[in-house]
């Protein structure tokens, strides 16, 4: 049932061209080069280090690896990360 519902939501997003981050609770990532990452709709930080930042994205967990990573600004909805980003992983 759950699988089916998920399918409906994803299909609705595709069919009606809806903003996915609002409907499905998915994070929206805006990456500027490899130095700035703007994340909307996050659910908090799980791990924080200058070389690794793990972010709870609701249905996904984001893992950023890089150098001199830092959270430049953070609110309940949005987050801006600065530093040299080497990779972004999703779990």
């Amino acid at each position: 049932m759950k699988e089916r519902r998920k399918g409906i939501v994803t299909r609705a997003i595709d069919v009606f061209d809806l903003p996915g981050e609002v409907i499905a609770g998915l994070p929206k990532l805006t990456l500027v080069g490899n130095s700035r990452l703007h994340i909307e709709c996050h659910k908090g930080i799980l791990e924080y280090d200058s070389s690794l930042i793990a972010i709870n994205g609701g249905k996904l967990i984001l893992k950023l690896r890089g150098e001199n990573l830092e959270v430049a600004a953070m609110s309940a909805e949005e987050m801006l990360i600065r530093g040299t980003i080497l990779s972004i992983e999703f779990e």
Partner: protein
Amino acid sequence: MMKRAVNFFLGTVRVRAECPYPERVMNICALNNIAFWDYERVGPTTVEFSVFQTGYRKLGELAERGGFSIERARKSGVPFFLWRLRRRYALLAGLIVMLLAVWTLSLFVWEIEVSGNETLSAREILEALDELGVGIGSFGPTISSEAIANDMLLKIPKLQWIAVNVRGSRADVLVRERIDKPEILDKTEPIMVYAVKSGVIKRMSVLEGKSVVKVGDTVQAGDLLVTGIMDSIASGKRTVHAMAEVWARTWYDLSASVPLRMTEKRFTGREKTKTALFFAGGRVNLYFNSGIAFTNYDKMTTVKKLTLPTGNVLPIAVVRETYREYEPLEAEMALLDAERMLQKRLLARLARLIGDGEITSTRFTSTLNGGVLTVTLSAECLEQIAAERPFTPEELQQARTPDEKKAN
């Protein structure tokens, strides 16, 4: 840069937080809208970050519930600096005294500006205002613009309208002057035309009245030129307002003299400057020794009003008095220079005498007598010599007696 300035004014706190999961502190901050920056991990369970003072207070309330502890590592900014000064009573008292002084002084009038006056001088208006109690240093709130305006209109009849606007320490006085009634020519008034200067009449134009002289006649100052008594068929005589323009050749002999030897000032270059302040109608000397050691000196005074860069005039004026020493020196003037100077002076005097008239010929004669040069100007001019005057009682009498010849 801007951000740092804002942080400085709002006051920032460096927080050291202890938590098994330091990331939790970040999430709590974000969820509760506590702005933070410079997040730094200092140990496995310890982090440091900066927040505003208000954020720190909020964080303190959340710490217990969130299962972490916080302490203030450092604080900086204006609020903390001011808080440290709260026990320095003298400083506080000084601040209050200063604010009170500024407030009190702003209630007094320090500057009066008069505008809109054309023939009346600003000094006249200011003096009249001063008599009514509005001057530099008067207390602003007691000045009743309406009462002052009424009194001023009575005091200076030439004023038609006046408004005194007191704004802070500045009083603007706006005036409008009464326009004089034009003089109406009374054509029925009996008037005679007489000569104001002696001369030989060159041309005449009589507009009203009967001329008693003709072109070529020599007249003396005071002689009657055109009479206002006319013949009348009905009553024998009638009076009119005689009007005429009479141009006559006039002669002038003017002389002026000047001694050729005179004392000149030769400045020695020694100077002394004294500075004083004019403030609220009083004078504050910025010097101690008021004596002047020079025997002969010229004194020059300059008054400069202080203004702010915004153009506002301050009620303070700087007075500089410069004393320049000189030695009296005997000098001889060149004859030609002296002659030319006197000639110029004589011509200027003549021009003043004849007014609208014109100079037809001039001749200068110079004589030197005992070191004194005398220059005489003989000039011939052409000028208007007619002027009007009312009838004398005798003339009136004469005009009223019927003409005997006609009566017969």
